[in-house]
Structure formats: C-alpha cells, structure tokens
C-alpha cells in the first residue's frame, strides 16, 4: 500500500535551544489548522480500529438475552457519541472500506465484497448513518444539557435514534430489496437483535457521558 508521505519542515536536528524554542512557538502559531487535521485523522483511525477490534473478539452471551451480542455496533455508537458527526461517520466508513477491501474485520471474521452484496449489506451502510446521527445529536443537543438525569435520557434517546433507528433504516429495506421479502418480515427478523442493541445503547450513553466529563473539548 502506498505509504503516506511525510515531509520534514525543519531538517536540522542539532539546533541550539533558543532558536528551537522560537521555531516551535512559530509553528504552533502558524499551523494550528494542520495540527488539528492530523489529530482528526488519528482519532478517526483509532476509533475505526476500536470498531474492528470489537468485531474480532468473541461475542458475549448474557443470561437474559438469547442472541449472543457482538460488540461491533457498540464501537459504532461510541465513535459517534465521542467524536461527533463528521469524525464518527468517517471512523465507520473506514471500517466498511477496509472490510469491503477484504480484511476479515466484521463480526465472525467476515469481510470482502460478498458481505456487501448479500442480504445484510445494508446494515454496514447503516453504521455510517448511525454514527452520523448519534454524533450530531450529541454535539448539538446532549452535551449542552446541564442536568445529569436529563442528559442521560437525552443521550440514550440519541443513541437509540442513530444506533438502532439509523442502522435499521438502511439494513431492513436492503434485506427486503435484495431477498424479495416484504418489509414487515425483514423488520421482524432484525427484532432478534433489538434487546442486545438496546443494552449496547445504555452502555454507550453511560460510557460516553463519563468520558466527556473527564475529557472535555473532545468535540469542539
């Protein structure tokens, strides 16, 4: 794969301390935009890797819920809730692109173009929409609420809207279209995953609000 080009701005490595300080001061003043862009790219990559790593782990079975829970959509929800709409959607997009390119990143070691053309391909597209919705609602609504309880319920509602509403909105019609089943049956089929998804939504909300409290300015 073509390596990203790294260009050096200042080549000299043995500069006396004062000019070096001045240089770094000048740098921080002039290139604040490129610094934040690099940071955005790294955040996107780390959260994409988190989504991928969660798919590689064995699914968890909880006593109350019959279907085993894969953690992958937890990563998708977290990316939106923590990084905001644009970066969250990019993190999901990166995972989808890498999976389509053939890396076995999806839950159960799946990957490749067959997944996309198959009946469950729409859910992958839904990830991108889902993290976009969650990110937008968190950025412009949830994080501006001051009351703790109100914030929790607003957060939960946002994660459900994006992480369940947004993802199913793409996945259910896709299954119906690809297989020829009607929408109702297709929706009924995805209902098996609803308890697990609700559980993940609660976890995402609690985690996101806790992290936002200690890591302020994550979404500027």
């Amino acid at each position, binding site marked *: 794969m073509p390596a990203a080009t790294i260009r050096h701005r200042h080549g000299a490595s043995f500069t006396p301390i004062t000019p070096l300080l001045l240089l770094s001061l000048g740098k921080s003043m002039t290139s604040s935009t490129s610094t934040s862009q690099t940071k955005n790219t790294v*955040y*996107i*990559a780390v959260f994409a*890797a988190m989504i991928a790593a969660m798919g590689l782990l064995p699914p968890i079975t909880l006593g109350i819920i019959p279907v085993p829970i894969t953690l992958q959509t*937890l990563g998708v929800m977290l990316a939106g809730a923590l990084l905001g709409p644009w970066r969250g959607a990019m993190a999901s997009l990166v995972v989808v692109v*890498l999976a389509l*390119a053939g890396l076995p990143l999806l839950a159960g070691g799946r990957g490749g173009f067959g997944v996309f*053309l198959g*009946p469950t391909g729409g859910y992958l597209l839904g990830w991108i929409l889902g993290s976009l919705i969650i990110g937008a609602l968190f950025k412009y609504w949830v994080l501006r609420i001051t009351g703790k309880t109100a914030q929790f319920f607003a957060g939960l509602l946002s994660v459900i809207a994006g992480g369940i509403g947004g993802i199913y909105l793409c996945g259910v019609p896709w299954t119906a279209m690809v*297989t020829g089943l009607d929408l109702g049956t297709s929706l009924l089929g995805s209902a098996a995953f609803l308890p697990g998804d609700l559980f993940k939504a609660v976890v995402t909300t609690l985690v996101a609000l806790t992290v936002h409290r200690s890591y302020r300015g994550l979404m500027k």
Partner: protein
Amino acid sequence: MIAAHNTSYLSRIKPGWKFGSLLVLSIALYMITSWQVLLVAFVLSVFLLASARVPMKFLRGPLISITIILGVVFILLGIQTDWLNALRSVLRLLTMCLLAYSVSLTTRFSEMLELFQQVASPLRYVGGNPDQIALALSMTIRFIPELKKVYIEVREAQHARGLANNPLAVTVPLVVRSLKIADETAEALDARGYDSAPTRR
C-alpha cells in the same frame, strides 16, 4: 477474505476490471426473471469460483453463513409468496455472492486499497484530501492489534477486581486509553513535521 497467495488467472486481471464486471453482472442478475437462466448463471459462478483455486479453509466460513441466511430467506419467501419465486431470489443471491467471493479472494489487499484510492481521488476537487484518507486507512490497520491488546489487558485487570462482566468497568478504561494513544500518536506526527495539508499535483 484476502487473497493470500492466489496465482490463478483471475489474480492477473486488473482489479478495476474485476469490480467493474462484478457491478455490471449484479445489475444484470436483477433484470433476469427466468429461473432457468438464473440456474445456468449459478452453475457458471460455481465453476468460476472453482477455477480460482481458492483453498477451502477460506471459503468454509462465509459459505456456511450465507447458506444459513439464505435458507431462512428461502423458507420465509416460500411461505409468503410461492416456492418458484423463493428459488429465483436465492439463486440470484447465491450467484452474486459466489461472484463476489471469486473477485475478493483473487485480489490482493494492496491492489484493492489502490483501487479505492483511485476511486476517491476526485474528492480532491471538492475539498477532500485523499492523502489523509490513505493515512487513516493504513493507521487503522496498524492500530487494530494494539487496541485488541489494550482490550484484553483491561479485561484481565478488571477480572482481577471481579469486574470482568461489568461492561462499564471495561469500556471506560478502553476508550480513555484509546484516546491517549490517539493523542500521543498525533503529537508524534506533529513532532516529526508531518504536513497534513493537501498536496498539489
């Protein structure tokens, strides 16, 4: 689903051609309504996949999962409409998936990424930055094993405290440590003078 060392004739075709024909064939399959033609297409796709000489161990997992999903679809469709319609749908999907496997499993990952980069390069004209996209993709691959390690470490640490089944006690440290890794990496890139402004070509 990566072509590890595929040396068949399919691996020598340019990836752009393979994906182009996959797209065209998939659209064509949706136009076909006669089940006899679909059956012929299915048999042909089986031969295509067999001619790619892909080791069975790469195929077993995906084939089992697609068979289970399509089995459910077949039964539901058969009950709802008629069995001929169900057969048509399932044959079409199976053909498409087999064609997609033949393309995926005979194309190297690096070729695939190059193709994506070519597809994404017009984004430069609408304000996108293909270099940043390439950086994000390659960095993600590098971070996956690291984050998996962090997850296992956190899980073990919480297990020692009796908190292994508490999702919050595992996820919060995982997220905080990931953010720390991201901050450190961004600082390291800046310290080395990585320039993220789009290159003019």
